[in-house]
């Protein structure tokens, strides 16, 4: 059998053996004893009942009083006395169940002995747990000199967030997940311990089963609108995840070298190791999504301008978005179709436009193991219907994880994750045109959005617009006639061989691959007014393929040895070659090609590149390689004092390769003082730790160090026209990686038999040599230069408090509270006092930008403010506020304090978990509220409208000439001047405190009692009801969700017409066979 399998190759072999050879093993025991192994003779039931005595001690041999001792199946039990002794009547073959809070439950089969001495192991993760650290090296948790946090896979499956990044919200101290208003197929932005770089990636490295997992954003909306094309994290099925290990600090991820400066998130997928024989697990999750309507508009004055309601179709066409009309009184008015309607408040545009999005995710997993190895094959299917009509995502994921001992000392591990993902009609947001969300936000408050539903086409097939503004479009036309489709095929996997040369020495080789093909097809239909330059032909198209692959080849030699009774020693040394190729090609607005969309279409309504006469082809290729060597050594003394050191050196093709010394060292120490000293009984466990490490958030942009040239897409007198390429950035041949150094110290304490615990960390992270795009005088021939000169500091604390306030036989209440504070400070940006962060420019509101300003926290929102006088009064000129002479910073858009508060209540087979999360200390610039002021929908535009709707406001403050302001200004003009760009714009008006507290998730799980399915192949059934984003307990942003950032770039803090926030309710059923 095995011979046959081997000839079919490794993969077939493992699958074949496991499926065919292991099937009969299924009838073996379902649980493992701590005591004698299965198959050993444990007793003779014929021996009668008799008294058994015993003593129960802890690890150190100290007697434990109050331990519960019962016989499995019996209703009553006994507890140990002050000397840790007990007596119980039992017969041969019975199983004693010995349990106590804070200790692992032990089951002891009764044999022939009548006096037992039983040691209980404390139930503390820190005391015994083995965790995965950088490069997949497993270590004792107690030995770690830095902070890590593990999130169980069940936390993710229960939260039902498609994007793993979003699912981490509120779960881990110091991990901040930025909320983005980009919808369910959008990206996430996860940062750990602040932002280390102005220009480079600030998100952690994701590693799935040891394979670095690309999480690049495929495209985002900027100043002029656009789409979030998603990132990589939605390509993992939460049901396949066993656990997530968050390596927060540089020391924890130092072995990842230039990729580890932002921490790392290690994802371990489920394996079949726990299932003897073959098991099947089926999971299905059905979720309904609804839009959370945060709108709180004024409904006293309706559509129109200057207090006049539309009396005819022409007037209606002029003002579809203006709620500056007359007082709403139910009288007849005329809409944009020329129909007469009642001039009454219309509040249901959200409800009528958005539908309930139904998501169903089903997965099935097959797993099994024997003493030679184990495997798990998971297949999942996801359908996600968006709340926006005619938009959905379909995703299938196949995940395979297998380990097999081919020879006694040779272990083969194969992991693979294959995904197929198709998204239909990703939403456009941020600025119009193409924004499907804008209409329901800004339509006048007496305008029924459904008027457009069956009126989206003119008789000639072109778009029927609700008004004269051709850039604000019909949302139904956007939903049904625009196309924005993406598909992705992705394979992530690794094959590794591990050979144990000696029992303390191994060598391992690994090939890893992550790669995808991402196809984008975007159509602006031919009937879109502003694209029809000649009045006839219009529309445009972008179609391209983004091909990415990363291959890592690595080796590792490891030794693990004990010297005498006191010393242990671990060492690893290895190397890695990373090789990345990215290629984009296609027609139209291919990223980085400089092209715009291709158009117009020759034949209306036929959307193919073949229907366009001139279509620019774009191609963009990038290849980079990083070679690395690394090693680590750990020394342990008495299993309570640990010293660890690592080093890694990286060589880059993308940077100056004449320098060799990009070396990242780390040292860390851990001391479990509760094992070294005798402490009061209520101190169960105590450890202090400290570390220092160097890392980087290196640059992975190829070809930044050489000058390149381009040829224009036109000729003059037949002559090609050349130019210096590179968008005005001076190439830098001496680029180095960004340097990050971090000091960290912390403690982990457990009290009262582990009923309460605290984990605290303090860190001080300094970035130097940050790659900063420094402005150059254009007379240099360029606009900027990339230089290694930026400096940033991030310091903070992280606290995790855990407690079990109540624990009885049937009921327990577990509390977990995490809190983090990060103080960032920009120290140097290369001589300038400010630097504008790329990728973040609001369309609306002139001069508003996200800047990094020396001496201030990361990401300041800057813009023009109100001028105030010595009395603190706002200053007005001609009745309108005076704008500050220069732009001023309004505060950081990065939250200073973040955290979560989780309560888990378990009653018998029921479990209820409720998670609150909160963030404090950030600002947001709300482009939506700006437009709501401009359009007269914001409630603050009510004051002064008067009886006819065309009143005047005398704003409170002082006149520029002295004395109080007495000048009255038309209310519509007043707000439109403040909100429109230019000399009257007051950005300060639209800056809000983005702090919030939310009830993020709640889920109730019921595990059906085992007896329900006795005699069936079913081993377990769980049913849970889940809900997310149930309640916004506190926020300060009217009309919008405070977590509404436009995109996941480093420039955070801007919001405009984003995807609405969603609330979801779902049912999850999990069946194990």
């Amino acid at each position, binding site marked *: 059998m095995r011979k046959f399998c081997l000839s079919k190759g490794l993969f077939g072999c493992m699958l074949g053996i496991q499926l065919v050879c292991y099937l009969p093993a299924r009838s073996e025991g379902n649980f493992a004893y701590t005591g004698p192994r299965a198959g050993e003779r444990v007793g003779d039931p014929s021996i009668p009942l008799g008294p058994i005595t015993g003593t129960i001690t802890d690890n150190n041999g100290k007697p434990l009083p109050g331990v519960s001792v019962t016989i499995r199946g019996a209703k009553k039990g006994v507890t140990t006395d002050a000397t840790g002794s007990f007596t119980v009547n039992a017969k041969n073959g019975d199983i004693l169940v010995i349990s106590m809070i804070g200790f692992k439950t032990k089951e002891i089969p009764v044999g022939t002995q009548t006096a037992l001495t039983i040691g209980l192991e404390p139930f503390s993760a820190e005391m015994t747990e083995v965790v995965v650290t950088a490069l997949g090296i497993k270590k004792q948790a107690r030995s770690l000199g830095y902070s890590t946090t593990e999130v169980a896979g069940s936390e993710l499956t229960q939260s039902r967030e498609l994007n793993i990044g979003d699912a981490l919200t509120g779960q881990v101290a110091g991990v901040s997940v930025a909320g983005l208003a980009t919808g369910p197929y959008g990206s996430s932005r996860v940062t750990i311990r602040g932002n280390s770089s102005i220009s480079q990636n600030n998100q952690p490295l994701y590693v799935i089963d040891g394979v670095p997992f690309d999480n690049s954003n495929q495209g985002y909306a900027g100043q002029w609108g656009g789409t979030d094309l998603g990132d990589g994290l939605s390509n993992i099925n939460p049901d396949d995840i066993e656990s997530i290990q968050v390596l927060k600090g540089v020391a924890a991820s130092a072995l990842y070298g230039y990729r580890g400066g932002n921490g790392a998130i290690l994802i371990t997928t489920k394996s079949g190791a726990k299932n003897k024989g073959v098991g099947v697990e089926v999971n299905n999750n059905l979720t309904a999504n609804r839009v959370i309507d945060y709108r709180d508009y004024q409904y006293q004055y309706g559509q129109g301008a200057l207090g006049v309601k539309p009396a005819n179709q022409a007037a209606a066409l002029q003002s579809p978005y203006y709620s500056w009309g007359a007082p709403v009184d139910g009288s007849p008015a005329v809409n944009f179709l020329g129909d007469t309607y009642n001039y009454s408040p219309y509040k249901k545009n959200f409800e009528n436009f958005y539908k309930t999005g139904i998501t169903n995710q089903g997965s099935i997993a097959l797993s099994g193991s024997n003493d030679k190895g184990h495997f798990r094959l998971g297949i999942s299917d996801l359908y996600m219907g968006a709340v926006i009509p005619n938009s959905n995502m379909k995703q299938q994921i196949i995940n395979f994880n297998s380990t097999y001992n081919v020879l006694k000392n040779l272990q083969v591990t194969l992991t693979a994750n294959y995904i197929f993902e198709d998204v239909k009609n990703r939403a456009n947001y941020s600025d119009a045109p193409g924004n499907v969300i804008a209409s329901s936000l800004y339509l006048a408050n007496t305008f029924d959005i459904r008027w457009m539903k069956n009126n989206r086409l003119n008789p000639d097939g072109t778009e029927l617009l609700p008004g004269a503004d051709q850039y604000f479009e019909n949302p139904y036309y956007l939903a049904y006639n625009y196309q924005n489709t993406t598909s992705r095929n992705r394979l992530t996997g690794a094959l590794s061989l591990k050979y144990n*040369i000696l029992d303390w020495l191994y060598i391992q080789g690994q090939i890893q691959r992550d790669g995808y093909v991402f196809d984008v097809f975007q159509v602006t239909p031919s009937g879109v007014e502003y694209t029809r330059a000649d009045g006839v032909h219009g529309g445009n198209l972008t179609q391209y393929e983004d091909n990415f692959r990363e291959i890592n080849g690595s080796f590792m030699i490891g030794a693990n040895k004990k010297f005498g009774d006191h010393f242990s020693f671990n060492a690893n040394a290895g190397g890695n070659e990373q090789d990345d190729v990215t290629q984009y090609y296609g027609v139209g607005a291919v990223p980085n090609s400089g092209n715009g969309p291709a158009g117009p279409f020759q034949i209306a309504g036929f959307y193919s590149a073949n229907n366009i006469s001139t279509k620019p082809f774009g191609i963009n290729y990038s290849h980079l390689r990083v070679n690395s060597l690394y090693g680590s050594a750990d020394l342990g003394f008495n299993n309570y004092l640990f010293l660890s050191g690592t080093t890694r050196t990286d060589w880059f093709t993308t940077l100056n390769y004449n320098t060799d010394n990009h070396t990242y060292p780390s040292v860390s120490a851990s001391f479990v003082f509760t094992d070294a000293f005798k402490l009061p009984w209520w101190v169960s466990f105590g450890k202090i730790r400290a570390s220092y490490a160097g890392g980087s958030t290196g640059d992975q942009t190829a070809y930044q160090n050489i000058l390149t040239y381009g040829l224009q897409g036109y000729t003059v007198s037949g002559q090609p026209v050349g130019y210096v390429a590179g968008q005005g950035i001076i190439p830098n041949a001496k680029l180095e990686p960004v340097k990050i150094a971090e000091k960290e110290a912390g403690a982990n304490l457990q009290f009262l038999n582990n009923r309460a615990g605290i984990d605290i960390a303090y860190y001080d992270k300094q970035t130097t040599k940050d790659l900063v795009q420094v402005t150059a005088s254009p007379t240099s021939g360029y606009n900027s230069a990339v230089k290694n000169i930026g400096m940033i500091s991030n310091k903070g604390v992280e606290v995790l408090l855990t407690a079990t306030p109540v624990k009885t036989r049937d009921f327990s209440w577990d509390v977990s509270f995490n809190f983090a504070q990060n103080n960032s400070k920009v120290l140097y940006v290369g001589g300038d006092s400010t630097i504008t962060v790329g990728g973040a420019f609001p369309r609306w509101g002139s001069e508003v930008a996200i800047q990094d300003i020396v001496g201030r926290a990361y990401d300041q929102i800057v813009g023009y403010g109100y001028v105030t006088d010595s009395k603190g009064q706002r200053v007005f000129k001609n009745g309108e506020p005076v704008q500050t002479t220069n732009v001023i910073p309004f505060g950081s858009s990065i939250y200073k304090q973040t955290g979560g508060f989780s309560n888990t209540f378990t009653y018998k087979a029921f479990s209820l978990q409720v998670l609150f999360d909160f963030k404090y200390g950030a600002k947001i610039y709300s482009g939506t509220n700006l437009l709501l002021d401009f359009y007269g929908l914001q409630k603050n535009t009510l004051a002064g409208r008067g009886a006819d709707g065309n009143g005047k406001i005398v704003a409170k403050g002082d006149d520029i000439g002295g004395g109080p302001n007495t000048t009255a200004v038309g209310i519509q003009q007043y707000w439109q001047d403040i909100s429109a760009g230019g000399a009257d714009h007051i950005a300060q008006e639209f800056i809000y405190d983005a702090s919030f507290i939310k009830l993020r998730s709640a889920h109730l799980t019921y595990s059906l009692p085992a007896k329900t399915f006795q005699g069936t192949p079913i081993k377990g059934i769980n049913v849970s009801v889940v809900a997310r984003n149930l309640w916004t307990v506190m926020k300060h942003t009217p009309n919008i969700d405070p977590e509404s950032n436009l995109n996941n770039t480093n420039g955070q803090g801007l919001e405009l017409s984003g995807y609405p926030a969603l609330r979801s309710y779902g049912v999850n059923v999990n069946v194990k066979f």
Partner: protein
Amino acid sequence: MNNKLRLTAFAGILLLGSCKKDFVSINTDPNHITAANINYGYLFTNAQLIASGNSDANGYEDWRNNLIYSACMIQHLSSTTGYWDGDKYLYNASYNSAYWDDNYNNSITNIVEVVTHTRADSVAQSNFYNIARIFRVFMFQRMTDMYGDCPYSQAGLGFISGITQPKYDKQQDIYTNMLSELADAASKLDPSKPNTVGASDLLYAGDPTQWKKFAYSEMVRLAMRMSKVDAASAQKWVQAAVTGGVMTGNADNAIVVHQNVSGTPVPNGDGLILIGNDPNAYRLSLTFVNYLKGTGDPRLSYLGTVCKDPTVTTDMGDTTFAHQLGQPNGYDVPGSKTAYDLANAPNWPGSQNAYSVVNRYTFSRLTAPTFFVTYGETELLLAEAAQRGWVTASTAATYYTNGVTAAMAQLAAQAGAGPSTAAITAYMTANPYNPASALVQINTQYWVASFMDENESFANWRRSGYPTLTPVNYPGNVTNGTVPRRFTYPQGEASTNSANYSAAVSDLNNGDKMTSRVWWDVQ
């Protein structure tokens, strides 16, 4: 076991040894042109094209500097359009800096690349190298004439030398260096060496003989620009130029021929604005039309036309000499009811469309040529030099006659349409050279000859003081009712190049203002 360990060590060493293998080839972009395969001729094409004033397919530099400002300030054109600030000496910072903004990090980067990369090659690229040096002088002559002190020796070297904040060279130093560059480069042009630039040179297809004439004609321009501030040098250099050999006919004119390709910078920037982007914003100036009419200049019918509606681009208008009418400078739109309502101007013809616009057979065309340096201009400058006694190869009268005749003849030959030879002869007979009013006559003719090369026209007017213009004094003007003397620096320089910018501003007699004078513009 030992073998296993050895194998392990070997694997490690292999990886170590190959740590930087292939790094250069991996870090070479297969889709971008690099120094290994660029044809620098293509960059030279770009430099010439952009220097003609249309870097972005919208004619923005021409629109703002050449037309809105220079053309109106020297009263070739007149405008009642609000943003045509030059008509009334109003201030717009970005219009002032338009030419600077759009050339330094574009055409100048390109020419610096060309000069740098052709320098090393001693034979094959020698002619190309020297041609590029000559053209670079022309580009900086225009820049410094407009702004004064400016980055020159360190300009465009952001990549080559890592200079991100170039110093501002003194205009005098720039002139000194430009003149020696011209002399040196012209002397090294050698028809026996290969022509490696060829058709990429839009002016002369790389012909070294033509470039030599261009260099010496440009030398005349530079020399005469110094006539007030350094007469001795002016005399020395104008003599050197005549000895070297200047242009000898209109066939030597330096011209960029444009095409009608929408959406590219290929069309003529002036033409694009005059017929395409802003056809109704301007009229010919009363000062200009009156002068042409007063002398019976036959060019008037080829420089002006009266359209019923200038926005109708197919309306070629009425080019009849007698029907041409100039609009006075300094007025608001007719019917605006302001104190400066054009309808209240003397001799108001009842409709603004009675005033002439730029002729649509010649300069108001997308395919109109751009004249960089002409034979006619050169002869006129030599006429002044002869009049001053600085050159004696010909008489001032001969130079003058050659200059005016050529300036008229080039319209028919090169600009699309122009007066007949008979008309030119008749004009010369009626308006002979008059030594008594030589400088007025010569420089007024230069003013007509440089029509549409407005920045050049503005420079020669500042130097010579002729013709006498009719300054306007409109409320809000920034020159106290005097014709501006220069353009201001880009506002961005104050932050991106602050030390050098501040030093340059402190050297200006009146700060970074339109009323400050550049070095050669002494009172």
